[in-house]
């Protein structure tokens, strides 16, 4: 198809052509950036937790009157839960991945160091590794005689007596690599306070923190052998088979209620719900962006339909003349399609520059990463397609103009 006659026609419709080009450019820029933002959200929602997500249940109960011996109470509860049919494993914990509420500590590699090295989360509780289903990469799991009661540890911290403090810890691969790049972390010491030095005895494949807001720091996790009592915000974690979750949860709650009808269940949920709740704002944002993109593309398509219809109506006589002189319907159809393709291409080229500019602005203000080049062809293809679909109707109408129009006056 010869594009020179098209260009010369467009030159006579400068204003409308430029309006269409600018509209396509702006749409292209917004679509590129919005698709990129959606991609970011989806990527965040896929953040690995490191645990057997479809097999876990979390229960939190609160006692109206404090139990006289919280550790015995917790052990009773755990024993009760173990007896529930089809339960694979039970653990007590102070927190769960993506659970929001978290316990954290400042890590130092040298007790005398004035500034912390980093801020890591600390998991407490017995039987965590097998119940969560996180994999031990090297070293050993925590053993029963590593554990210290919370209150004993807190008292020892006050008196500075180091014998009743925990001495070992598990850390994630990511944390090990961050603290000692390329070295074997086993046997090294992490300081939570100048007196609490914890020797790394095992390395976990992955375990996300409860407050994983920053992807880069989501795996800064330690598991410390501290025994929870039934008087803190402890959670019971239950592992079972995915298909048994609902029935096990009901049976577990019944068992806990039976032991003490006065207690209040504050949390009962599967880990799938934990993840869903933690990332709900991301999901809402992604949904909203999809809505905006769809609406924007519709608006742009409507604009193209309007302008193309106008051009067809305006050139009815010319089309008639061309048809009379031997142009086929196909020729006319292709003429309008090519015209739209040309306008869209110029618009897309401008849009790419604009998209890059918007991305630079967002990078400056919202700490977003650079727009990867892969999003540019996506925007281009989407707009070419929208343009072609929108112009098809008017172009077909143009192709249907009979040659006899040439012989009539307007």
């Amino acid at each position, binding site marked *: 198809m010869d594009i020179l006659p098209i260009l010369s026609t467009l030159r006579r419709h400068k*204003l*409308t052509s430029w*309006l*269409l080009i*600018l*509209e396509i450019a*702006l*749409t292209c*820029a*917004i679509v590129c*950036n*919005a698709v990129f*933002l959606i991609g970011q959200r989806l990527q965040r929602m896929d953040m690995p937790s490191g645990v057997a997500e479809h097999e876990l249940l979390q229960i939190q109960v*609160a*006692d*109206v*009157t*404090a139990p006289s011996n919280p550790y015995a109470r917790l052990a009773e509860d755990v024993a009760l839960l173990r007896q529930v049919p089809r339960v694979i494993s039970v653990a007590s914990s102070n927190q769960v991945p993506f659970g929001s*509420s978290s316990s954290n500590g400042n890590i130092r590699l040298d007790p005398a160091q*004035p*500034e912390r090295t980093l801020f890591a989360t600390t998991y407490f509780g017995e039987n965590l590794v097998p119940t969560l289903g996180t994999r031990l990469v090297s070293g050993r799991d925590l053993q029963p005689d590593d554990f210290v009661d919370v209150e004993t540890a*807190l*008292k020892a*911290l*006050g*008196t*500075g007596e180091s014998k009743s403090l925990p001495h070992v810890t598990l850390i994630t691969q990511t944390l090990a690599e961050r603290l000692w790049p390329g070295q074997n972390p086993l046997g090294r010491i992490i300081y939570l*306070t100048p*007196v609490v030095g914890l020797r790394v005895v095992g390395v976990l494949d992955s375990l996300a923190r409860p407050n994983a807001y920053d992807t880069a720091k989501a795996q800064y996790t330690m598991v410390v052998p501290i025994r929870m009592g039934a008087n*803190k*915000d402890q959670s019971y974690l239950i592992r079972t088979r995915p298909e048994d979750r609902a029935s096990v949860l009901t049976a577990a709650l019944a068992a806990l209620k039976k032991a003490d009808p*006065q*207690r*209040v269940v*504050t949390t009962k949920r599967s880990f799938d719900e934990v993840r*869903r709740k933690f990332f*709900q*704002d991301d*999901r*809402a*944002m992604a*949904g*909203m*962006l999809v*809505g*905006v993109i769809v*609406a*924007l593309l*519709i*608006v*742009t398509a*409507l*604009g193209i339909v*309007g*302008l193309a*219809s*106008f051009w067809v109506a*305006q050139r009815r006589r010319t089309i008639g003349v061309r048809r009379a002189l031997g142009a086929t319907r196909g020729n006319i159809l292709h003429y309008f399609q090519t015209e739209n393709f040309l306008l869209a291409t110029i618009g897309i080229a401008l849009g790419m520059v604009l998209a890059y500019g918007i991305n630079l602005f*967002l990078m400056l203000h*919202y700490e977003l990463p650079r727009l990867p080049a892969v999003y540019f062809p996506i925007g281009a293809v989407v707009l070419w397609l929208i343009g072609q679909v929108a112009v098809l109707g008017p172009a077909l109408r143009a192709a249907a103009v009979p040659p006899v129009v040439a012989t009539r006056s307007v």
Partner: protein
Amino acid sequence: MFAYYLDLALRSLKQNRVLTALMVLAMGLGIGASMTTLTVFHLLSGDPLPGRSGQLFYPQVDPTPTAAPALPGNMNYIDAVNLWQARRADRQAIMVGGNVKTKAAQAGSRPMSLHTLATTADFFPMFGVRFTQGNAWTAADDLAKARVAVISRSASDRLFHGEGGLGQSIRLGQWNFRVIGVIDDWRPTPHFYELDRESYGDGDEVFIPFLTSRDLAELGITGYSLNCYGNTMDDLHLENQPCLWLNFWVELDSPAKAQAYRQFLDNYAREQQALGRYVQAGSPRTALPSVMQWLDQNGVVPSDVSLKSWIALGFLLVCLMNTTGLLLVKFLRRTTEISVRRALGASRQQIFLQCLVEAVIVGMAGGVLGLLLALAGLWGIRHTPADYADLAHLDLPMFAATFAISLVVSLVAGLLPAWRACHIAPALQLKVI
């Protein structure tokens, strides 16, 4: 003359229904999407206490051993109580909240976990909390560690099954508190006075005197943020512990008083440094942000919301260009008609006005459609699981803004096409006929 333009415009719009529908739809979609996102932004960046927030301030001091880039977001017990007892502001209140197991005191009632705020007497008048029954406790009750409580209407419904509950007792943990006031459900958004909680989450349900809650440490208020900067022995009795966990707000009714309080805060910090309580070298840092500054410092408006409003504005721009293009098409199509009017004596100005009237009619129709779409969009947002979802309503200013925006957009969009239309050379067009 205006009525005539209106008549002409309506005729012309009727003449080409498809194009008119296209324009209205494009305008409506643009305005609807922009208004939806802007409403969410307006809501989230909104002032939690309009008219009052300018006089509320959040004093900050730094008792920690090492200076962080930002001052601590909470106070320890000693500083909070010192500043509270100094009574140098018009009003001042300490507050900390968490979940407490609560039930009505009579036998057989069911325990439930309610969000409880331990605070001091000034809290209610300072934040303008309205009571439906009874009153707040007094400063004397604070010091006497009285076991009294104020509950919200929804808590009273849940605890007493709609029978008010004033004068009755509720049981928090193992202690009885007498209900002396019931407040209207009160949920400032964002939850500015205690940001540790979900900023757009539910309101507080039970209020008890702060000193009473410290007296009964085993009350088991849990779920507040506790940030310790030294060795702690005990997280139950926090009075002497190096831990930051309290919120302290003051009301200062004039800029002069705010200035004086800033001075007082500086002096206080220097005094504490001299006493050896503040160990950081150099002159101690203090700050006194107002409510809006405090929200801003804490990035309480989710950044993706401001991102969304940028997208919304971009959207509006696309719609503007779209409408301009379509109006241009519409007016240029009628060149013959316009030429005839010009030839019969209509001035350029009259043609220009006629075109603008047509543009505004399209704009208003688009505005109405946009309003409907915005309502639908907000309905959609209310059904997402985001924290702020159920607050998404179109309020009166945004309602008015919808029409103002559609008017401005249609006028701006109409300018160029109208200018082009009134510069058509009539002679040339008349020859063609």
